[in-house]
């Protein structure tokens, strides 16, 4: 193989390793980014918002009982309570459709059922409150402690989803570490192979060039006695060695012609 071809192949190999490394890196970054996108798109944040709405709903109920003796406040706080109540339910229903985790979805469905029961109790308590001329004690008695089971269910959903997110993040980190090691190992192995090939190629070229230099130095000194030109190969150095062998033979022939007659033909 020609030296130029060898060098071109070596260069192409290095470029290929570089391109391959970049491709692996891009693929790894893409996979990592996709994983984190999935984490960001997870319903954990929506769950937090729904939990806040739920707590506000309970707060609006308490405000209704506390300040509902005033008709204007009653209208304001009961309206806000109903708005929050609807937001909580709509949010929970929407979440139950987007959550992929079966256990979390099951917990959300349990929450929706519990919320329906609680809403009915709130409505009954509200009716008692209005009918009893702002009798907050009677109304509170009907719903006291009723918000705890749904709250617990909500906390369980959030906890479950957070666990899933943490597991996803851990899996992403592990995958990134593994991919990085694979990419480094693969690129490193290829670079070592290419480096070894380059080293052997250069060493061979340098050794043969040194032999060629020694031959040309002896020819330059007309020192052809016992000179042996053993520089073979199909590359440029081999071709040069062949030419040197021709020159050597020509010099030997001239020296011989000067000393002896031509051998007679048979």
């Amino acid at each position, binding site marked *: 193989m020609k030296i130029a071809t060898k060098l071109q192949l070596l260069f192409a190999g290095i470029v290929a390793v570089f391109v391959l490394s970049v491709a692996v890196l891009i693929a790894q970054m893409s996979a990592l980014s996709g994983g984190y996108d999935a984490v960001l798109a997870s319903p954990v944040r929506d769950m937090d918002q729904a939990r806040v709405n739920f707590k506000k709903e309970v707060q609006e109920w308490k405000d209704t009982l506390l300040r509902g003796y005033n008709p204007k406040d009653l209208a304001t706080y009961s309206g806000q309570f109903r708005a929050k109540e609807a937001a909580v339910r709509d949010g929970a229903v929407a979440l139950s459709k987007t959550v992929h985790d079966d256990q979390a979805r099951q917990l959300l469905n349990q929450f929706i059922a519990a919320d329906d029961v609680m809403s009915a109790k709130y409505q009954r308590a509200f009716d008692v409150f209005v009918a009893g001329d702002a009798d907050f004690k009677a109304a509170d008695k009907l719903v006291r402690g009723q918000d705890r089971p749904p709250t617990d269910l909500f906390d369980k959903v959030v906890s479950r989803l957070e666990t899933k997110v943490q597991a996803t993040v851990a899996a992403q980190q592990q995958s990134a570490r593994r991919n990085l090691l694979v990419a480094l190992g693969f690129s490193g192995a290829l670079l070592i192979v290419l480096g070894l090939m380059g080293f052997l190629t250069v060493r061979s070229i340098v050794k043969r060039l040194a032999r060629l230099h020694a031959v040309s130095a002896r020819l330059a000194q007309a020192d052809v006695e016992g000179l042996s030109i053993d520089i073979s190969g199909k590359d440029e150095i081999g071709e040069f060695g062949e030419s040197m062998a*021709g020159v050597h033979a*020509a010099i030997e*022939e001239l020296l*011989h*012609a000067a000393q002896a007659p*031509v*051998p007679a*033909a*048979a």
Partner: protein
Amino acid sequence: MATRLAGYYAQAANEFGVVGRMKLAMLTKIPSERAATEPDSPAHIQAFEQALKQLRAGAR
């Protein structure tokens, strides 16, 4: 003993003189002294035939 190879040198000397011998040696890489001891192998004969053709073509 390479009598045929030695014969090529005799032909080159007759046709082109010392320069012919030198060119034959350069083209075949086998000087006359070595040609006398090398075997008359088909490869050698082909190389000398080719070299002589080249010398004659160059002389025209």
